[in-house]
């Protein structure tokens, strides 16, 4: 395995940048996330700017990737090739969205805001992990 010792360092750097970006963007705040989803009320469009900025830069990364034969620190790219829109994808995403709207948290911001030491985020992350483990037990053996 190429450069396997460097991969955690790269992951730590990428994670830190991700967490900092979330903090800067205002998306750690569940009220703003719910404000974005509140299209029938006082709509707050900021999340669209966050997503737009992120997708634009990630697309540039994708364009760069297409010129590479393999990643700098690994043997190959692990990019999903499946393009079938199936029931688990749609049902799972619908369940995820319900929870996202009810709490105003998705996994990234929930984990990043653990650093603030607030009880509701701790509780959210504990139940999120329980939900993940419940899924993996229920539908074990399914490639994720």
């Amino acid at each position, binding site marked *: 395995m190429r450069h396997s010792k460097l991969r955690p360092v790269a992951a730590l750097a990428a994670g830190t940048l991700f967490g900092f970006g979330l903090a800067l963007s205002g998306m750690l705040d569940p009220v703003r996330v719910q404000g974005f989803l509140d299209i029938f009320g006082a709509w707050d469009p900021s999340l669209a700017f966050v997503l737009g900025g992120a997708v634009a830069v990630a697309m*540039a990364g994708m364009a760069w990737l297409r010129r590479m034969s393999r990643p700098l620190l690994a043997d190959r790219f692990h990019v999903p090739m499946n393009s079938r829109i199936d029931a688990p994808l749609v049902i799972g995403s619908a369940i995820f969205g319900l929870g996202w709207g009810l709490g105003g948290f998705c996994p990234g911001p929930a984990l990043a805001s653990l650093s603030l030491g607030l009880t509701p985020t701790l509780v959210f992350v504990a139940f999120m992990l329980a939900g993940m483990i419940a899924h993996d037990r229920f539908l074990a053996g399914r490639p994720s």
Partner: protein
Amino acid sequence: MTSYLVSLLGGALIGLSCAILLILNGRIAGVSGIVGKVVQGIDVWTNAAFVAGLLLGPVVYFAAFHHWPTVTVTASLPLIMLAGLLVGFGSRMGSGCTSGHGVMGLARLSPRSIAAVLTFLASGIAAVALLRGAAL
């Protein structure tokens, strides 16, 4: 207006993080997938390092700006518990969340991710409309 620019900049940094993880490690920056791998014990060091970085990000923010980012939780604790279960279960079942499908999936123009994003936006909008209607 400046708040939108700051959001755009924060988003761009998130996109940069995704590009770095892909170009260096060859991996999609999908937070639910990465956490799932830590739980399942797959490539633990690398995946746990990304999660540790996520937590470190707001600390760097505090070091730079001398205040913590705003986190205002209005939901009651039982609602938070329900939301956590749904987010955990749903993101694993749907093979991704706002990062894997929302950022990387859209950047890859993946049909699966586009379907996932439209679905969770719709159910998220429905959940918030429900909350506002029921005044929970």
